[in-house]
């Protein structure tokens, strides 16, 4: 359980109060582009699409007037984990890998396909991290729930309680740093009392039992926080009458155009293999 300390320094999930072009956009537009970057980065395996989305994330950082160092501060902390993932890529031979071998050491070899895969993995990770980081930096808590509600509003006609759904997802986002911090506190407290978390023990029951003093308190503390939150919301009479909104989202044609653009970008990128096949056949 080493290397837990960095989860408290995660800048993802923190709102940076500033005035920039991105801050002023309606939250639905921010969601649309966040989804566009995440979908293209996860679904596509084309180098062009991945680089385009990564450049897009960099552009967002500039437009939000954030410093790259701020967004990528956590990236260096996560590097060891990426290194471990890369190491596994080298260790495991992919079925049907026939590309040429770059370096070979004893039984293990780094092939061109594996090194490309590692590069793409780092690129994907950095791009998604930047996109999520910028999104949380320019969207306040209230806005992120409001934006989700706007995006899901068509579902309300089917009888879904969209407002509650949006609030739940927004709450989960905001709870992540808190829960990570709780976990870190508990791990350190247990370790300082000499807990070894069952590593090295050969007894299967002991291995599972060693996880109890971590899992149960972390979840109980999360539930306690949920209880406090529910009480705070009830004292403010949440859900006891018709819902009102503090801010109404203005519907502008510019925002609509930006959402359509995000949708088209996603569609174009995910169907790129079809397009290029068509072009080459021509």
């Amino acid at each position, binding site marked *: *359980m080493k290397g837990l300390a960095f989860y408290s320094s995660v800048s993802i999930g923190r709102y940076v109060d500033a005035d920039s072009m991105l801050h002023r956009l309606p939250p639905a537009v921010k969601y649309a582009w966040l989804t566009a970057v995440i979908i293209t980065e996860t679904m596509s395996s084309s180098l062009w699409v991945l680089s385009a989305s990564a450049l897009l994330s960099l552009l967002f950082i500039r437009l939000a007037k954030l410093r790259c160092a701020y967004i990528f501060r956590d990236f260096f902390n996560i590097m060891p984990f990426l290194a471990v993932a890369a190491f596994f890529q080298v260790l495991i031979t992919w079925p049907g890998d026939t590309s040429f071998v770059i370096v070979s050491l004893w039984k293990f070899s780094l092939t061109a396909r594996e090194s490309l895969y590692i590069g793409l993995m780092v690129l994907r990770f950095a791009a998604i991290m930047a996109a999520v980081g910028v999104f949380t930096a320019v969207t306040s808590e209230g806005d992120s729930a409001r934006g989700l509600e706007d995006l899901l509003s068509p579902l309300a006609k089917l009888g879904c309680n969209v407002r509650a759904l949006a609030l739940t997802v927004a709450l989960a986002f905001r709870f992540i740093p808190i829960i990570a911090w709780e976990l870190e506190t508990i791990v350190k407290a247990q370790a300082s009392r000499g807990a070894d978390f069952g590593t090295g023990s050969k007894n299967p029951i002991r291995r599972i039992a060693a996880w109890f003093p971590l899992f149960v308190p972390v979840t109980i503390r999360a539930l306690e926080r949920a*209880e406090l939150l*529910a009480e705070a919301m009830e004292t403010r009479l949440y859900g006891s009458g018709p819902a009102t909104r503090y801010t109404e989202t203005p519907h502008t044609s510019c925002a609509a155009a930006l959402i359509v653009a995000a949708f088209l970008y996603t569609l174009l990128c995910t169907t790129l293999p079809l397009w290029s096949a068509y072009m080459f056949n021509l």
Partner: protein
Amino acid sequence: MKSNVRRIAVSGALGAVSVVMALTPLGYIPWFGGAALTIMHIPVIAAAILEGPVAGTLVGLIFGVTSMIKAAVAPVGPLDPLFANPLVSVLPRLFIALAAWGIYALFRGKLQAAAAACAGAIGSFVNTVLVLSALALTASKQLSGAFKVDSAGGLVQVLAGLAVTNGLIEAAAAAVFTSALISAWRGIEKAHGRSRLADDDK
């Protein structure tokens, strides 16, 4: 009118717990031979038991989307890229809560610790079986390559073996953890007292 404030708050918090479990070593118990037992689905089961199937399904959705993004962004094994498919990583996870809640409801509030243990075991086993079936349906070709079997029957055998060995141990672990968690929480809840408005609704 039944207040849903508590449902919202608890699903939000447990959703965050499942994300943290996926991102830190908390979600995996190191097991023998380099394998790991996952306990990431327990927040989903806990939400289903405490706040009903809707809250559980919401947490299941959060859990599924997290595992999809994680598999796509940083795969650690040859099987991981297959989880980038939402049919494998998201859809099966939506049924964990329904199964767990159904089993828990069968006990009608009696024998809470035993009810929670059964719900945990069934919820966990439903997760294993559905995920493996989804894998077999969507990616039989890649799986056959990875496990070095050449017939569809052989693949089903390998997956069934995985479901029985890994799945049963995970179900047992889930039963113990869910039971401990629910008992601890109900004990605290009794001493602490619930918030007033929610009690009036019942």
